[in-house]
């Protein structure tokens, strides 16, 4: 498997050039070659959602997507979306509700939630449950995650901000 292909993509705003094997998954490339720690590998078959990242604005399963497919694309991970503030109110809300325990699902869950908030601003509690049903969480029981997302939907609808909690190092 020594055949390698040159690719160029933007990852979290930075241009990345690489020469990689065509079989390399996007999430392996992000984790092992770029040392990003946000997208996680849970199942490698698209079932759990821990590897969720954004390619050209759409969330995808990083374990079912080859890195060469992202050639010429804009890739965003939790790290970049944190830095540019896209996820700020969701992250604040997840903190307030303790909508994470071990945190392994959180990057994927937040990216899925962000897409929901963007595309379905009037989603009901049931619709929130349905939307995040592509992402495993084995710790929380989902209730607090649903609460956290609903809080953001309600706050945005009223033009309010999620009140920050004090975070400690």
């Amino acid at each position, binding site marked *: 498997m020594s055949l390698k292909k040159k690719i160029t993509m933007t990852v979290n705003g930075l241009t990345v050039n690489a020469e990689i*094997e065509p079989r390399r998954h996007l999430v392996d490339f992000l984790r092992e070659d770029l040392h990003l*720690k946000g997208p996680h590998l849970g*199942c490698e078959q698209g079932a759990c959602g821990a590897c969720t990242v954004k390619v050209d604005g759409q969330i995808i399963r990083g374990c079912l997507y080859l890195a060469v497919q992202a050639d010429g694309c804009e890739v965003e991970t939790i790290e970049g979306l944190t830095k540019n503030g896209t996820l700020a109110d969701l992250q604040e809300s997840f*903190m307030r509700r303790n909508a994470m325990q*071990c945190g392994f699902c959180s990057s994927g869950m937040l990216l899925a939630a962000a897409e929901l908030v963007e595309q379905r601003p009037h989603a009901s509690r049931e619709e929130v*449950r349905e939307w995040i049903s*592509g*992402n495993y969480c*084995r710790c929380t029981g989902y209730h607090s995650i649903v609460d956290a997302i609903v809080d953001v939907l309600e706050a945005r609808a009223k033009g309010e901000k999620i009140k920050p909690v004090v975070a400690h190092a």
Partner: protein
Amino acid sequence: MNKPADLKGLVLDPVTNDQRYIGNSEPRHKARRLLEGQGTYVDDIQLPRMGHVVYWRSPVAHMKIGKIHTEQASKMPGVLAVVDGVKMAEICKPWVATLGHLAGMKSAPQHSLAIERACWQGEPVVAVVAETRAQAEDALQLIDVEWEELPAVVSMEEALSPDTPVIHPDLGDNLCFTRSLDVGQVDDVFASADVVCEATFGFGRHTGVTLEPRCQIADYNPGDRRLTVYHSQQAPHMMQDLYCRQFGLSESDVHVICKDVGGSFGIKVHAYPDDFATVGLSMMLERPVRFVADRLESFTSDIHAREHRIKGRIAANNQGDILAFEIDDLTAIGPYSMFPRTSAIEGNQVVNLVGGPYKHQNYRAKLNVVFQNKTPTCQYRGVGHPIACAVTEGLVDLAAQKLKMDPLEFRKRNVIPDDAYPCSGISGIKLEVLSHEQCLRTIEKMMDYPALRKEQAELRKKGIYRGIGFATLIELTNPSPAFYGVGGARIASQDGASARLDPSGVVSILIGVGEQGQGTEGIYAQIAADAVGISIKDVRIITGDTDVTPYGGGTWASRGAGVGGEAVLLACQALQENILKLAGAILTRPPEELVVRRGHILDKATGEQLLPFSEIGRIGYFRTDTLPAGFSADLMVTRHYTQKEYPFIFTNGVQASYVEVDPDTGFVKLLKHWAVEDCGRVLNPMLVDEQVRGAIVQGIGGVLFEECLYDDSGLLRNGSMADYLVPMANEMPDIEVAHVETPTQSSKLGAKGAGEAGTAGAPGAVQNAINDALAPLNASVFDQPITCEKILKALGRV
């Protein structure tokens, strides 16, 4: 739903002199970085020269291993080593996982890589190490093992039959452990009882499915002959001890580090064969070696749990008093008892816990734990409790139904009263203080029980079948050395904590119990802030490093808050005392005249601020020349805590489930779930709520979805996340949680455990709700997971 702001604050007397954080829904210390993709799980750690191991695992349930051909694989690009069991056994000793206090228990010696025979599909046989994971997997394809399939023991019912092959001939039979308990005049009571009900309860094998798979990096440094293991594990000191013993090292030669752990639930508290093999490979190669299980490996090599078949009976009189329980539990554990906690504990717990909430005086139990050729089983969240609870509560509902009594009233009449403690349960368990009556009253109000029954009755007229199910439960937490220590297992039931005032005035806490997401570090920060008298933002928690933290047992049996938290409290109160002594020396005043408030030393009488902690730190560390001769500042203290008053501190609670069953499809819709939990002092209501909810959903997984399915030859049929069903958000109900606080007197903090009771109660509550819905159709199901197919069979529709 509970909003944090609505949650009850502190309701008990404070345990510290300026209590601000204990009892409040503080957001979790250090959790934000997990929401920013900045956690450090094992797979995020990169070490220079790190090799990657993959294992060739047995493709069948039982096989004789012949010649192993490794030549082709060894020549593949990047391959560093190909190692079999014989070679590995030169440096890693085999082990036998039994406990001395489980009389008569037996198991066979087990190797880190199988030698001669492999006894389950997924047992590691050959290790391939390469420079990258992909290279190791490429080479794995070229491993050629000559093997011959041997007859497999699959059915636990037939494991003891003379016609069934014995898995380990040296053991004589396939019986791992047996126990009988007979208390009271059981036969007489059943013979003369007004009402006797019986049922056979089935429990499917399931597994933890931690989202982060099991993983570790072993790094043997030949320079200082020291082994460092980065591990996704719940008990770092236990693993340190096991590596020492299996490889002939001393404690000071082994360093175990557990950073972020992506879910554990008991799956990551055991020592797996591949744990030892990975360490052995690093020692052989003198370089770091990483193992990360892929999902198929997780399904076939993570421990499974809860394969039981239990025949149960209950006796009651016409007045509605429960008189007796009797159970016969058959359970199977795979080919070996798991190291070092043993696989007999789960069945043993079932015997201890059946009937546990009730005041009957007659009980008989029989337990047979048998070997079979499937993945080993061992302790997983709730350990035996979900089984004992589903059996007990299923029988209780059958008796209530036969007596035409309301199931909630029947429970109220029969639970051990709140003023009866301390007392012993009929199986011999010691119960310190419980609150069944108060919990039952609370849940009745919470769910508006009369209205719900009315709604159920009205909907039934329209052909809509809804059911309400209850499960009352007890859960053992805060274990004493009676759990493992007395049986010879080197698993610490004590925990130590060190509290250090740093020069800037920050307090650092070092403790053996780590964080797997349950919020342990968060509650330790709360306890430390209150006990020292400082803002929570000035507390640092350091866990998961055997070189650094005091010796401790880690996370298991819901001990983090009750045992670890008490150690933190004791250390921090002692640190405050020393801070006051030092302040007295600086101010030349008796320490009794001073008090600590919010990071400052105050005059006790006037409340005047005299010194900030930063000044205490500055003088204590850098200007000791200004202190009186012979005065020692002692700004780091260590205290240990072990719970010795009782074998365990029991918690209790009750859950209720409301479901709708479609008799045409067998489909169960979960409408709502309620839980009342008494975990003693509630340190952080929000975190306890989330522990309860997460645990309930894992329990719901067991009763409705999850099962490791095997075919007749012992092959796992659903080893992927697409085939093994776990609860997803859409199927789960909202879960309302309430707390009753009955603190344990065995500690100052009064906290009992809270991590597992949800898993213990949910299967019983959902099972009873389904059977309540099916009652008008004269059907019932006691075989978990309760699938649509089983419901339709019970209804005679298929």
